[in-house]
């Protein structure tokens, strides 16, 4: 029975629809956030501990290689949040029509990019 199930292991032959792209990016951003969490925990605790340590944390966070990771982190956070809210609405069958779902997935991608860009320019 199981052997009869079709398998397609070549991912490049699959055309990924936008809602599917949002979904996989939601998962990937979640994994990214989880893996980067120890660094945030360290920065948070280190910055709280003393004035000197706070200045040191700011210095490290302002270094440009760290900044690139921070931009990815902020994007992951915003995308995970907005896409998560979209999936929550879909769970309640709000916006699950194909046209609305396509539009909302486009909106999620665009809005998360714009917000990340604003955050990157602001800090």
């Amino acid at each position, binding site marked *: 029975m199981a052997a009869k199930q079709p398998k397609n292991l070549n991912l490049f032959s699959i055309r990924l629809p936008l809602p599917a792209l949002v979904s996989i990016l939601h998962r990937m951003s979640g994994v990214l956030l989880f893996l980067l969490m120890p660094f945030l925990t360290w920065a948070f605790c280190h910055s*709280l501990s003393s004035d000197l340590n706070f200045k040191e944390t700011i210095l490290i966070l302002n270094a440009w290689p760290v900044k690139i990771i921070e931009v990815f982190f902020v994007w992951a956070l915003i995308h995970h949040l907005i896409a998560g809210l979209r999936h*929550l609405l879909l769970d309640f069958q709000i916006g699950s029509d194909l046209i609305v779902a396509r539009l909302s997935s486009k909106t999620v991608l665009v809005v998360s990019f714009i917000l990340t860009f604003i955050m990157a320019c602001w800090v």
Partner: protein
Amino acid sequence: MNIRWIKEPFGGMTQWVYQRFTALLMVAYLLIMGILILNHSVFDYVGWISMFDSWLVRFGTLIFFYIMFFHAWIGVLHVTEDYIKCFAIRRTVNFCFLMMINIQLLILSFYLIKWG
């Protein structure tokens, strides 16, 4: 509605409910913290630490981290279940991630209770 999920202590439906519920709590926390950050000068130490003067903010932040790691833990379980076929490797990876979460929560609890 199928109520079988009540019998299974940590079945799929329970996970689904916990993950959505914690997500909403985290959105609420992030909104409140966003407003707090805008009202404090967080780029100097005095302003940054004054944000955590309030017992409520410290407690809320600690609860946030616990909720966040619980949410992440469910997510991690789903991801490893999907991509790691070998049971032993999956269990090992899950155990490492759980330790990672526990150590972070221990450190965060220590700092948030000790400081402020």
